[in-house]
């Protein structure tokens, strides 16, 4: 495996996908209405870059606010759920139930309570994205090796200490994994809320473009979202490499 290939592979993959997409659109004469070709989408990006950038910025920061809430809350709730079997058994089903519900159903309630705009978007991003974090933190704590736990218990450490010094670090690779899932969900949540009630953001722009019959612009918004997701991923990948190098020692490790 040459390391140049490795460095280039994300770009090659992305390029490949766009080329494939363009080809499919041209060969099968896919309707713009159904799926615009990348060339059309990039044209829309060029034409509307200013509103795209402005709205993308709004979406980015509402998403990040919701995501930050989700991370904090998810870790704390994960610890609580990992803490007590009674809470685990009681709360888990309820959380599963809550998460099986499409958040679209919840957004209107949030909008009625908090008005349209940024608050419901932040809350939706939060509500939709905390669950994977809870699950991975709780799993990490529950599957702690008793041997490592004993190291701290033998020192008379309190449960919280054990969780913080062993449970959380040990589960870090999975915590970061769950963050990758959570950030994508947070974007979805924020955008969804924006489509239902907001005067700005990519979700708002998408619906507007849709009702203006501008499918390429709709897909330009989606592209913007994808780019934002990838940028956030790059940030995590960086932080992750710093924190969890110890976990990715496998010679087969693709992450390191």
């Amino acid at each position: 495996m040459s390391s140049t290939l490795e460095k280039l592979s994300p770009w090659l993959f992305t390029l490949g996908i766009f080329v494939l997409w363009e080809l499919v659109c041209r060969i099968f004469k896919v309707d713009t209405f159904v799926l615009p070709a990348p060339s059309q989408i990039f044209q829309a990006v060029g034409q509307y870059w200013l509103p795209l950038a402005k709205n993308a910025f709004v979406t980015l920061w509402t998403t990040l606010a919701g995501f930050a809430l989700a991370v904090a809350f998810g870790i704390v709730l994960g610890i609580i759920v990992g803490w007590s079997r009674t809470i685990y058994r009681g709360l888990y089903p309820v959380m599963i139930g809550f998460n099986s519900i499409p958040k679209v159903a919840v957004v209107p309630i949030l909008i009625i309570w908090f008005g349209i705009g940024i608050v419901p978007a932040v809350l939706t991003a939060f509500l939709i994205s905390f669950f994977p974090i809870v699950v991975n933190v709780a799993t990490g704590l529950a599957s702690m090796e008793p041997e490592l736990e004993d190291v701290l218990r033998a020192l008379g450490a309190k449960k919280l200490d054990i969780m913080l010094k062993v449970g959380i670090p040990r589960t870090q690779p999975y915590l970061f994994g769950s963050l990758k899932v959570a950030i994508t969900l947070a974007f979805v949540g924020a955008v969804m809320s924006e489509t239902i009630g907001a005067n700005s953001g990519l979700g708002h722009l998408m619906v507007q473009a849709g009702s203006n019959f501008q499918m390429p612009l709709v897909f330009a918004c989606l592209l913007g979202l994808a780019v934002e997701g990838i940028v956030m991923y790059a940030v995590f990948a960086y932080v992750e490499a710093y924190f969890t190098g110890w976990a990715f020692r496998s010679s087969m490790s693709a992450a390191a």
Partner: protein
Amino acid sequence: AQTDVKFALDWKFEGPSAPYFVAIDKGYYKAEGLNVTVDSGPGSVAGIARVAAGTYPIGFFDINSLVKFRDQNPDKRVQAVLMMYDKPAFAIGTTAKTGIAKPKDLEGRVLGAPAADGAFAQWKAFVKENGIDESKVKIENVGFPVREPMLAEGKVDAITGFSFSMYYNLLQKGIKPDDIKIMLMADYGLVLYGNAIIVNPDYAKANPKIVAGFVRATIKGVLDTIKDPDTAIKSVMARNETADPKIELDRLKMSLRDNFVTPWVKANGFGGVDMARLAKSIDQIGLTYEFKNRPTAEDIFTSQYLPPAAERRL
């Protein structure tokens, strides 16, 4: 001092929303002492709830949805105070190649209709008024995003929807203007009204002057828009960076022709209703929908905030 008023639209900022922006830009609201902000919305169903809950004091929504809302929530006395669309945009859309020319032709065909569609909600009434054998029409629940594409691809033979939405979506699908057939339900026996300005009851009770002022200023905006749509559309375009001015102007003109300026409006002035027709329209809703607390026409519309007829003449 200016009073802040949040006003909720049913949908995005498009050609037909010109009157409010005209009223803002020309200072009509300001003249009433109002500082109006306009928010786009998610459609009538969710929107009416927002007005009922008080998130917005005033909104622009479908009066037929309001009837159902009042039926389900009899103690929430949300009322319409200004009728905007004398004729609703509810329509059946089809293409020339299907050969459907009149309602009866729908028999034996597939009708694509989003379950949440305002136009589809009137389907049963439409069936009854036109003597269609309902059992012979196959109905497919197609969501909004796929409605027109499925018609264009021949997967369904006709669709329900708002006339101007369908028209432009079908144009986008590359169907020639001449091949697009739109049947306005109102032209086929439906007496339903369309969208109206509705108000939160508590707010209206506490601030009757504001509501009346809002209504008056809005009417001015409408009249200006009817007079000069080409200028009015600029007020919309200033607030929607991505819209195509030509499409929006077309859409506004179509809406003015079909929805705003009907013969009845020309005769009686803008903004009022014929209470007998409204009562009959409630009956027609009852054909599709099972009432539990059937509202009366008076429950739904009040003319108390309307300015005198003279101010409403075209």
